[in-house]
């Protein structure tokens, strides 16, 4: 069920990534101020936007779980947060590489954009031990959903606070109402954003399909009344 449409989605993701990378290196003009280094932004900024949006989507799924008590939504929420945390790792590393090239430092602690993203990332990094610490699966799912809703609400608040704060050195990608980017750069950026959104969706679908298949195998084992080999994960929820 979860694997439905995965093949065309994967193909679309690969195609979109290829188009985006081609646009980044062969179409988008060099930035007058930053030069070639600015090419990192086509990767770093879409990754950050999709990761933050993914955290919010995880919160929305958690709300649906709390409202319906359907474990499917808990699995959706877990997977959305899981993939967003992976994207978050990429955001932090690519950002640090850009910072080193541009500022000469891997990290700047008095820069609100960097520190706020790190806070959000570390907040979601606690999601796993928090989930893992609870044995009872129903309580685990409920508490994890409450966490996802609370943290999900924190993400846009945090983002707005950072936008309103006086940035010291971190550039603003959309500095003006019309985006502040020339046409070629904007087109490239939007393609990269679409590619990252597609990649996130594909990975979420992959993860859900794997969890669903694993859940079905366990159900089969239980139906056959056979002992389950290889301990089932207490962190990751199963979907049937």
């Amino acid at each position: 069920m979860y694997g439905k449409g995965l093949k065309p989605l994967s193909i679309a993701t690969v195609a979109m990534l290829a188009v985006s990378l081609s646009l980044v290196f062969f179409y988008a003009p060099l930035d007058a101020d930053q030069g070639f280094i600015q090419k990192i932004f086509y990767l770093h900024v879409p990754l950050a936007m999709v990761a933050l949006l993914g955290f919010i989507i995880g919160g929305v799924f958690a709300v649906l779980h709390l409202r319906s008590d359907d474990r499917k939504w808990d699995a959706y929420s877990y997977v959305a947060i899981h993939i967003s945390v992976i994207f978050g790792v990429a955001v932090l590393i690519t950002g640090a590489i850009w910072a080193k090239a541009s500022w000469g430092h891997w990290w700047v602690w008095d820069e609100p954009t960097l520190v706020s993203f790190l806070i959000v990332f570390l907040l979601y990094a606690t999601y796993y031990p928090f989930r893992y610490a609870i044995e009872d699966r129903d309580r685990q799912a409920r508490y994890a959903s409450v966490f996802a809703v609370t943290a999900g609400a924190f993400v846009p608040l945090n983002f707005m606070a950072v936008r309103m704060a006086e940035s010291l050195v971190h550039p603003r990608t959309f500095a003006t109402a019309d985006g502040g980017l020339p046409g070629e750069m904007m087109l490239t950026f939007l393609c990269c954003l679409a590619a990252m959104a597609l990649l996130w969706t594909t990975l979420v679908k992959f993860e859900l399909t794997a969890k669903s298949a694993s859940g079905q195998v366990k159900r089969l084992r239980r139906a056959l009344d056979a002992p389950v080999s290889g301990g089932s994960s207490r962190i990751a929820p199963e979907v049937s």
Partner: protein
Amino acid sequence: MFLPLAAPALPLDEAGKYVAGAYVVFLVLLVVYLAIMAAKVQRIERELREVAAIAEERKDEREEVRA
């Protein structure tokens, strides 16, 4: 001419190293994730094989009882 060779935006100077590093990190993360997913799929396949073997054993037992 082969497109990457004709591309103007690939000078391997100081900036090029950092840009390449950022994109390689992204690629490596993606490959690591796919490798983990591949391991998961292999585990599911192995479990499925075990379940199929148990189901076949049960079927043989039932047929023996009937016989």
